């Protein structure tokens, strides 16, 4: 069940919200866990069972590691290492196709996907590391730890949080009409991103990708690449916003994962605003621990690029993903070296967009060879600048593309924030409920035929 499905929006969400609000405050976390179990159970009981085993094992191993560590015993390393090995194994087992024997052994069909495994594995690994390092104490409350892994507003797109940050948010739970209003606004904003923007851009992206790369014109190839990165942004941030909105309705204020990264003026700004908590996780648990003891600038930069390579690989579990990450890391390093260049200052948004778009080809294509052929088409290697298809795509999608580009920036928000005219803000506040209703109705109309918006560029 996706957040952007009629079943979720019109049945599961209002029913679970109702149950949550009528439950005494003391029991609300347990009820939330129960609701999360139902949410996960709709993906299949086998998935729920796997999740239960995953949680119990991590919980027990972290508890053991924490207990042994508090007694300063070196044996704490063993449960820690076992936990890390298990988590990484699970990630590879369910995100690559090399473990068919495991699927057979567990009675899973080939199309099975452990929803959210990439995200909750990062959470579980981070928690294990923090417990082993003594940064936090191992959680004894199984309900709360289970929510940390499988709480349904976080399951599909995070945010990936450190355990202490998660518990702070859980402790500061605040429910009421304010939170409901904020949450529903955020949810509908995310829904619109997913259904109105991402699904439409996906149509443009897939139209370009039906064409043989050997006969693709340069402008069409650029249109395909730009639509892919925008689609990826709206798709991921849409689901993240929906999750954060749902959490807010339940009284939990999770940080937002995407902060208008498109059209950043630097690549490093793009990187800082894109899937913030995930990128932060790789910095906290890979770059920092390895680089902090090293003085050589060159090796530190190589570690930085290595962490980006792993992050890129994490996205796609493909060689293309790793290349995307490695090149992104390299681009940031190079940009930092050229930070004072006047040329960079003048062309900030343009070069950032070009580099991000070009690199995204490695994420989009299934193989490195395919990526290279696509890039060849982008630079005009097919000796075709435009063709009838380009004109058709431009005629059909230019307006959508321009609106999407505008919507991916923070220009509108900044206009409101910086505006000194109270009238403008008041008008915006007055029309917000109506705008939300219209957006919800539009999205409902668009998903009513199939019941959900099922377009997924990346399954995390």
């Amino acid at each position, binding site marked *: *069940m996706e957040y952007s*499905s*009629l*079943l979720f*929006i*019109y*049945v599961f*969400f*209002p*029913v679970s919200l109702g149950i949550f609000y009528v439950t005494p405050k003391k029991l609300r976390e347990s009820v939330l866990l129960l609701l999360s179990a139902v949410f996960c*159970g*709709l*993906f*299949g*009981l*086998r998935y729920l069972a796997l999740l239960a085993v995953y949680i119990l094992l991590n919980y027990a191993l972290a508890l053991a590691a924490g207990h042994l560590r508090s007694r300063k015993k070196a044996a704490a390393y063993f449960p820690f290492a076992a936990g890390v090995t298990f988590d990484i194994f699970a990630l590879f087992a369910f995100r690559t196709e090399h473990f068919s024997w495991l699927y057979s052994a567990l009675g899973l069909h080939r199309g*099975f996907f452990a929803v959210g495994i990439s995200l909750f594995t990062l959470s579980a690994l981070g928690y294990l590391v923090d417990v082993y390092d003594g940064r936090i104490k191992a959680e004894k409350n199984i309900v709360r730890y289970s929510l940390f892994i499988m709480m349904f507003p976080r399951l599909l797109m995070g945010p990936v949080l450190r355990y202490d940050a998660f518990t702070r948010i859980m402790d500061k739970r605040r429910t009421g*009409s*304010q939170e*409901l*209003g*904020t949450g*529903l*606004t955020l949810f*509908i904003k995310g829904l619109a991103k997913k259904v*109105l923007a991402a699904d*439409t851009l996906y*149509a*443009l992206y897939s*139209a370009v990708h*039906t*064409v043989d790369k050997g006969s693709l014109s340069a402008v069409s190839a650029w249109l395909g690449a730009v639509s892919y990165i925008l689609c990826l942004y709206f798709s991921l941030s849409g689901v993240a916003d929906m999750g954060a909105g749902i959490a807010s309705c339940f009284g939990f204020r999770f940080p937002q994962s995407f902060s208008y990264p498109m059209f950043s003026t630097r690549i490093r700004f793009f990187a800082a605003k894109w899937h913030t908590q995930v990128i932060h996780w790789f910095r906290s648990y890979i770059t920092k621990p390895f680089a902090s003891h090293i003085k050589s600038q060159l090796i530190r930069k190589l570690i930085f690029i290595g962490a980006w390579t792993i992050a890129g690989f994490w996205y796609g579990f493909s060689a293309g993903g790793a290349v995307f990450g490695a090149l992104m890391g390299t681009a940031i390093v190079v940009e930092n070296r050229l930070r004072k260049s006047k040329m960079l200052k003048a062309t900030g948004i343009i070069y950032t967009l070009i580099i991000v778009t070009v690199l995204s080809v490695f994420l989009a294509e299934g193989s490195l060879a395919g990526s290279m052929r696509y890039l060849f088409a982008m630079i005009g290697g097919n000796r075709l600048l435009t063709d*009838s*298809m380009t004109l*058709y*795509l431009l005629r*059909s*999608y230019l*307006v*959508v593309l321009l609106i999407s580009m505008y919507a991916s920036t923070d220009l509108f928000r900044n206009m409101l924030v910086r505006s000194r005219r109270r009238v403008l*803000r*008041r008008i915006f*506040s007055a029309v*917000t*409920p*109506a705008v*939300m*209703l219209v957006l*919800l*109705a*539009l999205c*409902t*109309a*668009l*998903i*009513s*035929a*199939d*019941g*959900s918006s099922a377009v997924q560029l990346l399954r995390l």
Partner: protein
Amino acid sequence: MKGIKNKLTAVAVLTFIVFFGAASAAGALFPDEGEDTVIPEITWDNISDGTLGRRLTEGIAERFAFRETWVSAGSRIDSGISGNIVGGVYISPERLIAADVAQRPDTADCAAAVNEFAENYDGIVYFAAVPTSAGVYGDMLPSPLDRVTEKQQTDRLYEQLSSDIRRVDAYNLMKMLSDDRIYLRSDSKWTMYGAYCLYRTVIQKLGFQPVSFDKYTVRHVTDEYRGDLYSRTLYMKNEPDILDIYEYQDGASVTACTGFGNDGSEHECSLYDISAVGSEDMYRLYLGERLPLMKISTDVNNDRRLLLIGSECAAGFVPFLTQHYSEIAVILPEYADRPLDSYIDPDDYEQTLFLFGIDAVKKENLNLTETR
């Protein structure tokens, strides 16, 4: 102000969600008389592999309150913002055209099945692959969508058929007549007039002179037909189609029409089933309920017998054939669950005509020798 805004948003959105959620849940839990429930059966397999969740998603979509209005509105929005393509169907002002060309299957297995039939058959085999509206009006599709044409697919199939099989060039004929009303606007299938146009060519190949058009009385049975392409888009802006029936008052008439079910049961049938008008599947106006085998006897005294093996488009073709044969057996393999020879002995018929929509040329539809 911000507080009021949030409260108003919460009230408005929650009211909207609860209203439509409750109405949809009521529709799903208490379906109208004659409608099936959309709550899937709860079994261990359903729950364990996630099928239950998927079926519930589909079920709620099926019974969503005011579904038709929502889907129709969705089509309009979709066609407005994404290049006029909704659910794999291209919406043009004149007609709807299937645009999901990538799904067209390979023809080699189908040709092999027909070749095998012809090899073991004593009579003459004819094959007519009928283009869909997407094949004839494919040039209306935006160029990036018009990739593998039905012409190429038909040519490939005809190349793979054995030389003993006589081919009918339906594609070029229909393409030539594309300015006439030969295809429905909201469906991938042809009109009765389209069927008549092909009949004129086919019947000459089969050794007869066609009945001229002016001898038929054309009756409009309904002008409210919306076909399979409409069902995929629910796009209301285009006019619905007219369904006709062709009657030859002074011609041969049908003396008996019997359908046979997979369980051996016999059903009385007719060339035109007027009761289908107004039903969910109005195209069943032609030949009525779909059965694997139908035998049609006429008062034509020439003792000529034809075996017609076909797809859905054959239904509109049969009325024209009744003027030339004393008996016609119609096999619709799509509805059969066992080998062809368990229904009929093909050698009892001196001619066999395969009449398939090119979109129906699939291995499963042409599997004539195996139990399904």
